C-alpha cells in the first residue's frame, strides 16, 4: 500500500529543513579535503538520468556508466578499446574443438556485502544474463552451458565455435552478481545493487541524482581514492558548463562541441576529447521508394560534404567516415572505399537512377537536437542541387525514435557507439535484417554480406576475420545502405582538480583511478 499523501506532506515539510530531505536518508557526506589521492566527493553533471540499474536489460549509456562502477565482469575492455584483459578472471584455456572454455577466477575478491566471490556467483550471473528477454541476451546466444566444477573454476560450453566470447563476457550484462541476488528478489536487488566494484550503492533521487559511496573493502587495495561520486541531471547544455565554472560540479559529460572553444578559455577548466566509437549515419529506408535504388543512395552519399559537416557541426573535432565501422574497433579497415563528397559523381548516379529528375522526400529530425537540426538543413541544401526537394519534419526525440524503429520514415539520422571490443555486435545489428533491427531499420538485405557476417562469428584466426570484415565493410560501402558521416570523439569538460579521468572508446570510465585535488 502506497502512502502518496504522506509523501506529499513530507515534501511540504521538507521546505523547512530541506537538507535532511534532499539526502534521502543517506549519511552526511564527509568532505575530507586534502591533497590528491585523499578522498573527495566527485560530482558529474549530465543531460539525462539513468533508467535502471538492471545490467542485463538496460540499454541506456547513462545507466551503464553508473552501474559499471559497482559491477565487474570476468574480463574488461582495454583502454584502447580494441581488446580485452582479465578482470575477475585470472586466466582461461580453450579446448581443441574450440567449444569448451575453462576460466580460473581471481582469488580474494569480495562483494560489497562481505561475501566472497565464487564460481557459483559467476554461474548464477551468466545464467540470468542469457535468460533475459529483450535485454542483452543476444550477446550470449552461442553459450550452451555454464558449469562451476569448483569454487575457483568456471567452464563455459558453446553451441558452435564462437570467437567473440571473451569480448562478450567483458560486457556489463555478464557482470558477476552475488548468487540468488544475495537472498533478495530481482526487483529489490536492483533497487540497491551489490557488486564487487570500487563503489557501492548509496541513493537515487529519480530524475535528479544518483550517489555511490566508496567501497572500503575493494579487492584492489588502495582504490578508490574518492569518497563518493554523484551523477546529477542538468538538461541544459549551458547550465552544465556553468556549473563546472562555478565549481558546483567537477565533470561535465559531453559538452556540445560548439561550447568547447568557450570552455577552453576558462581558468580551472580542462577539456578532453577521448577517442570514441561514435559514428553518425544518414539512414535511408529501403522500404520507401526510391531508396530501394542503389543509385539514389549513392547519389545522396556522394552529395554529403563530410568535411564541411565536421567543420560546422563538430567544429573540426572529428574525421569523415569511410566505413560503418569505426577506427577504434577491431577489424576496422581504413582502406574501405566509403563514398566521399563529389557532386559530379552524385549527379552521375542520379542520372543512372530511377528518378533522374529528382524527387521529393522528408527528413525525420529530432527537435531540440542541434546536430539533427544543422545536419538536416545542410543536407536539404545539398540535395537541392540533385533536384531532390527535401522537407524537414521535426518531431520530439521520443516520436523520432518510434518512427525510425517502425520504419515509418524516408531519410533520417542516427549514430552508434560500441559496447564490446568486437565488431560483431554492430555488424549483426547493421547488416543482418533478421537480427531484430531490420539492418539498422533500413531493411538493407545483401545475402553475401549476411553470410560473411555469420562466418566471421565462427572464425578464430585474426587474419581470417580481418579478411571477412574487410569484405563486409567494402560491400556495405558500395551498397551505400547508409550514408556514413563522421567519427567524433567523446568530449568531456572537467575541473583541473580532477586527475586520472579517462574515457574508453566504448564510453565507460574507471572512477577508481580518479583523484580529486584541493
Amino acid at each position, binding site marked *: 500500500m502506497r502512502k502518496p499523501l504522506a*509523501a506529499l506532506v513530507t515534501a*511540504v515539510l521538507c521546505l523547512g529543513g530541506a537538507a535532511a530531505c534532499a539526502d534521502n536518508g543517506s549519511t552526511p557526506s564527509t568532505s575530507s579535503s586534502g591533497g590528491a589521492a585523499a578522498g573527495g566527493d566527485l560530482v558529474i553533471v549530465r543531460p539525462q538520468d539513468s*533508467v535502471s540499474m538492471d545490467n542485463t536489460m538496460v540499454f541506456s549509456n547513462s545507466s551503464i556508466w553508473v552501474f559499471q562502477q559497482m559491477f565487474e565482469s570476468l574480463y574488461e575492455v582495454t583502454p584502447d578499446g580494441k581488446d580485452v584483459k582479465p578482470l575477475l578472471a585470472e586466466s582461461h584455456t580453450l579446448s581443441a574443438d574450440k567449444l569448451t572454455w575453462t576460466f580460473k577466477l581471481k582469488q580474494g575478491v569480495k562483494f560489497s556485502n562481505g561475501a566472497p566471490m565464487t564460481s557459483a556467483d559467476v554461474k548464477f550471473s551468466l545464467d540470468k544474463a542469457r535468460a533475459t528477454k529483450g535485454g542483452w541476451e543476444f550477446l550470449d546466444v552461442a553459450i550452451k552451458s555454464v558449469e562451476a566444477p569448483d569454487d575457483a573454476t568456471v567452464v563455459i560450453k558453446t553451441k558452435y565455435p564462437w570467437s567473440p566470447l571473451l569480448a562478450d563476457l567483458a560486457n556489463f550484462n555478464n557482470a558477476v552478481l552475488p548468487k540468488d541476488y544475495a537472498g533478495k528478489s530481482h526487483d529489490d536487488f536492483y533497487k540497491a545493487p551489490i557488486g564487487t566494484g570500487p563503489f557501492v550503492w548509496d541513493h537515487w533521487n*529519480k*530524475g535528479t*541524482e544518483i550517489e555511490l559511496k566508496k567501497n572500503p573493502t575493494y579487492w584492489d587495495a588502495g582504490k578508490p581514492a574518492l569518497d563518493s561520486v554523484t551523477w546529477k541531471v542538468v538538461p541544459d547544455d549551458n*547550465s*552544465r558548463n556553468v556549473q563546472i565554472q562555478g565549481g558546483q560540479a567537477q565533470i561535465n559529460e559531453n559538452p556540445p562541441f560548439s561550447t568547447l572553444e568557450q570552455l577552453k578559455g576558462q581558468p580551472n577548466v580542462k577539456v578532453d576529447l577521448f577517442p570514441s566509437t561514435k559514428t553518425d549515419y544518414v539512414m535511408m529506408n529501403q522500404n520507401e521508394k526510391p531508396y530501394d535504388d542503389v543509385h539514389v543512395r549513392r547519389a545522396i552519399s556522394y552529395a554529403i560534404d563530410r568535411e564541411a559537416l565536421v567543420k560546422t557541426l563538430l567544429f573540426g573535432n572529428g574525421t569523415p567516415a569511410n566505413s560503418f565501422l569505426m577506427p577504434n574497433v577491431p577489424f576496422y579497415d581504413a582502406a574501405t572505399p566509403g563514398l566521399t563528397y563529389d557532386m559530379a559523381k552524385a549527379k552521375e548516379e542520379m542520372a543512372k537512377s530511377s528518378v533522374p529528375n529528382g524527387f521529393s522526400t522528408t527528413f525525420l529530425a529530432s527537435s531540440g537536437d542541434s546536430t539533427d537540426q544543422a545536419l538536416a538543413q545542410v543536407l536539404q541544401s545539398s540535395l537541392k542541387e540533385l533536384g531532390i526537394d527535401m522537407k524537414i519534419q521535426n518531431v520530439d526525440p521520443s516520436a523520432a525514435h*518510434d518512427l525510425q524503429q517502425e520504419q515509418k520514415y524516408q531519410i533520417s539520422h542516427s549514430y552508434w557507439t560500441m559496447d564490446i571490443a568486437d565488431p560483431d555486435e554492430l555488424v549483426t545489428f547493421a547488416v543482418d535484417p533478421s537480427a531484430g533491427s531490420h539492418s539498422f531499420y533500413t531493411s538493407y538485405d545483401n545475402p553475401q554480406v549476411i553470410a560473411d557476417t555469420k562466418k566471421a562469428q565462427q572464425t578464430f584466426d585474426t587474419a581470417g576475420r580481418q579478411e571477412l570484415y574487410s569484405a563486409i565493410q567494402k560491400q556495405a560501402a558500395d551498397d551505400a545502405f547508409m550514408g556514413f558521416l563522421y567519427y567524433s570523439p567523446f568530449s568531456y569538460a572537467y575541473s583541473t582538480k580532477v586527475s586520472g579521468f579517462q574515457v574508453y572508446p566504448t564510453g565507460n570510465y574507471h572512477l577508481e583511478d580518479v583523484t580529486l585535488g584541493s
Partner: protein
Amino acid sequence: MRHLAYVGRRLVSTIPVLLGISVIVFFMIHLVPGDPARTLLGVRATDEAVAALHAKFGLDRPIWEQYLSFLGRLLHGDLGRSILYDTDVSSLLALRLPATLWLLVAATVMALLISIPLAVLAATHRDKLADQVVRAVPLVGLGMPTFWVGIMLVLLLALKVHAFPVSGFGKTPAQHLSSIILPGLTIALALTPILIRSLRTSMIGVLDSDYVVTARAKGLSHRRVITAHTLRNAAVSSITVLGVNIAYLVGSTLVVERVFALPGMGTMMLDAIFNRDFPVVQGVTLVFALMVVAVNLLTDLAHAALDPRIELA
C-alpha cells in the same frame, strides 16, 4: 460558517473540472505519437522487450480501459507508477515539489518587493516624470520571453559578476535561497508590469477617495494615510493579479526550471512529456491544476477577508 459553506460548494464544483482535466490530459498525451517503451529501451530495443514493457504498464490494453484503471487508482489516492523511473509518481512528486514551491514563493515575493515601492512612487507623483517612467519601463517586460531573460540573467549576473550561483538548487535551505534568486527574478520581471499598473490604479483610486481626502484634511500625516488605507487596497489588487496569473506562474516553471537546472516539477513535466512517461505527465498536471484551483479559491477568500463589501456567492 458562511465562508465554510462557500468553501465546501467551491470544492465540490471543482470536481467536474478536475475530472474534465484528467480526461483531456489522459487522452491528449496518449494521442501524441511516441512510445515510452521505445524511448526507454533506446535504439537497440527488440520487439519482445517493447512488448514486455507494454504489458508491465498495461499499455497494451484499450485506451478507455487504461483510463478507467487510472481513474480507479486515482480514487484511492494512487497516481500510478512512472514508466521511466519505475517509481511511484507520488514519491517523485514529493521529491520535486519543494523546488517548485520555493520558486513560486520567491517569484511572488520578489514581484511584490519590486512593484509596491514603484507603484507607491508612481501613485504619489501622479503624471510627473517618475510616474511616466514607472509606467512605461515595465512594459518592456511584457514582451520578454522567460527563457531568454533567464539566459541573459545568467550571462550578466552569475557569470560576469559572480553574484549568484548560476544554476542548481544546493542542499541546505541557505543554498536553496541563494539558488532561487535568479529564477525567481526571471518570473517576477514578467509579472511586475501588470502588478505595478494594477497597484497604481488602485492606489490612485484610494488617494482620490473621499475618506482619504478627509483624512488628509484632518491633518493625518502623508505616511499614515498611505500605509493605513492605500496598502490595504493594494493588497486586494495584488492578490487579484496574482490569483489571475497563478496558471501563468505555474506554467512558467517549465521553462525557468530548465534554464536554471532546478530539480522541480516543471523540469520533471518536460522530461515526462519528452519521454512519454504518461503517469508522470498526468500526475504533474493534476497537481498543477489543483494548485491553480486552490489559489483561486484562496484569492476569493482573501478578498472577502480584506474587503467586507465583497459577497461570496
